[in-house]
């Protein structure tokens, strides 16, 4: 099975609303990254996390290593938030650092 599972796989939001994306993993992750792939295909870094939370503007992310999940909260969604969100989990133990990606959440924000 998939080592990193993202939910939901697709999401449609009205501009100005809030939502949360989730990433569950079956590996002993020590770090998590969140990316946004824009419609042109570029991958933009959103967050890099060790266990804990980070916030940047309308985005907030949390990583719980004991419960093996991470969340990405979007507040006051805007049209430019549309795209595909990926999480990548990795374990830095044993010196073999190989991030594993989820399959992504496709987000469309509409007026």
């Amino acid at each position, binding site marked *: 099975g998939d080592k990193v599972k993202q939910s939901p796989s697709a999401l449609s939001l009205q501009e100005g609303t809030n939502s949360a994306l989730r990433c569950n993993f079956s590996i002993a992750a020590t770090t998590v990254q969140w990316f946004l792939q824009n419609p042109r295909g570029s*991958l933009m870094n959103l967050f890099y996390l060790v266990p804990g939370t980070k916030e940047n503007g309308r985005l907030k992310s949390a990583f719980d290593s004991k419960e093996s999940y991470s969340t990405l909260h979007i507040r006051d969604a805007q049209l430019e938030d549309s795209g595909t969100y990926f999480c990548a989990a*990795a374990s830095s133990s044993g010196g073999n650092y*190989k991030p*594993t990606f989820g399959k992504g959440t496709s987000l469309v924000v509409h007026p």
Partner: protein
Amino acid sequence: EAAVTQSPRNKVAVTGGKVTLSCNQTNNHNNMYWYRQDTGHGLRLIHYSYGAGSTEKGDIPDGYKASRPSQENFSLILELATPSQTSVYFCASGDAGAEQFFGPGTRLTVL
């Protein structure tokens, strides 16, 4: 901001031909990675490297070779390209246990 560049950005190859995708990073990161992205699969790790002269197999290495001649450069080599290798390829760099930074991607079509 980390700078990772890839060349070419687009490539059309014939079945059985040799293809080399190049990646360059200017941030002195130890680790470099090659992923491919296909619809429904997210990003999957092909090969990675811990430093000049090292290459390691990722999760889907079959049909691919990698070369890391220097800290800055990491190449992905398809000795005998097949149509199943048609995909978008991303290179990334980062230090072990640290944030990854991605290049813009290379779109490869094998006819």
